[in-house]
């Protein structure tokens, strides 16, 4: 018996994750002391969470980095990558150098000292500023005053979308947060597009083609007859999308 073993294809998939970016500031010993103080106030804040070491503010060499990572590991902070450094300086044995980090909104840091900037991932540019957290506040909602016509897409990943008119058949509204439509919803509404399962969809009259919340979607072909043309809201309970009348 002879069976030929075919090489199995290997799949690579890209994924993004949220990580804390820690930006040490010289002198590192003082920074570690501040970090210890922050950990004291909120024990377990970093425990088990992936963190990225942002070296944009420092000029640490490889010889300095290795003990720093060890120090952090003793505090149960595991460094998964290094940011703001030249990849050429960091060979094997150290976490990989990451680029193109984007700031993430959402949870606030519990405590903040002037030096322990254990904020969430930020761009190197923002890091360079003395107060990286004091960035421009992003608008949390988008108001659309005109009807959304067939073929148009409203995409707002940062928060809620409010549409004063109707959303036509073949139109699409995608929001990071909830979607509120004060006219008829005839097209598609996708709320919680970044994975926010708390997002909801509200409309004054439902004739929708498709509703989606946090990736769970449902066509409205199977909508209960007595809900059609009525004001409704849709939300997620576990992995089930529920639709109920508002009046």
């Amino acid at each position, binding site marked *: 018996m002879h069976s030929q073993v075919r090489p199995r294809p290997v799949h690579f998939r890209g994924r993004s994750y949220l990580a804390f970016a820690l930006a040490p500031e010289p002198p590192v010993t003082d920074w570690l002391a501040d970090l210890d103080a922050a950990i004291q106030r909120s024990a377990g804040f970093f425990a088990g969470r992936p963190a990225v070491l942002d070296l944009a503010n420092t000029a640490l060499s490889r010889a300095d980095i290795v003990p720093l990572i060890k120090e952090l590991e003793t505090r149960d902070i595991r460094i998964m990558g290094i940011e703001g450094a030249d990849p050429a300086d960091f060979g094997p044995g150290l976490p990989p150098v990451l680029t193109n980090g984007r700031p993430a909104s959402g949870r606030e840091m519990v405590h903040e000292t002037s030096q322990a900037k254990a904020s969430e991932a930020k761009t190197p540019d923002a890091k360079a500023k003395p107060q990286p957290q004091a960035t421009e506040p992003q608008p949390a909602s988008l108001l659309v005053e*005109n*009807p959304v*016509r*067939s*073929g*148009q897409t409203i995409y707002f990943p940062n928060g809620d979308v409010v549409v004063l*008119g*109707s959303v*036509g*058949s*073949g*139109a699409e509204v995608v929001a990071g947060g909830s979607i509120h439509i004060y*006219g*008829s919803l*005839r097209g598609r509404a996708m709320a919680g597009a970044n994975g926010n399962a708390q997002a909801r969809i509200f409309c004054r009259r439902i004739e929708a083609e498709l509703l989606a919340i946090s990736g769970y979607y449902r066509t409205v072909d199977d909508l209960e007859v007595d809900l059609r043309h009525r004001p409704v809201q849709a939300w997620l309970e576990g992995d089930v999308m529920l639709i109920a009348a508002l009046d």
Partner: protein
Amino acid sequence: MANVVVVTSGKGGVGKTTSTAALGAALAQAGENVAVVDFDVGLRNLDLMLGAERRVVFDLINVVQGVVRLQQALIRDKRIDTLWLLPASQTRDKDALTDEGVARVIADLRTRFDWILCDSPAGIERGATLAMRHADGAIVVTNPEVSSVRDSDRIIGLLDAKTEKAERGERIAKHILITRFDPARANRGEMLSIADVMEILSLPLLGIIPESEEVLRASNLGAPVVLSNPGSAPSRAYADAARRLMGENVDMTVPSEKRGLFTKLFGRRAA
């Protein structure tokens, strides 16, 4: 002050060309200087609707490409001398239209006419976007039927995005013209009602043209319906729509055929 109005719909066969010819004739009858421009290069029809197909020498493409002057391509209507046609080419396609060429022709027409009605081809591609490009206003022709209404909705979105005015941050005046409306069928629910269409498109209504055999008869005669049978229901509806376009306040009604005692008694059989 010239007014460039595109007659558009997205969907084909809803009555753009018929409406362009009828509204153009109605405006001209009211004493306005009107040019109707056929943008449906390769599938021209406006010349047939106006009965001018045997008088076409030069066309829009020739003018756009600068081969002839505008005056050489314009054809004056034989019945109303303030109505002019700029025909499309039948042998070329939409790629022969250039942005600059169309802009130049429209600018030239603006100096000569009160109204320039651009008959758009169906679809949302180059021909349709060039026809709407320089418009001050738009007439969106819609049948009371779901696919036509959705296509109109799509076109309205493009009018707010792709026209020169929209790109300057201005709004173009948009109107809905409902054609082929049959009140009896709408009452039976076989057709969308006027209220349904208006609710979906949420734009002002320019007119309601009833479904009528007169429209087909007129196009076969090569005359806009307002000229072939001025007393007919669609003719009166188009005349009202033209007056609204000129800014008059005309009550919105659905004109019906005037029926004599005979047709009333014998109803459809006699019709």
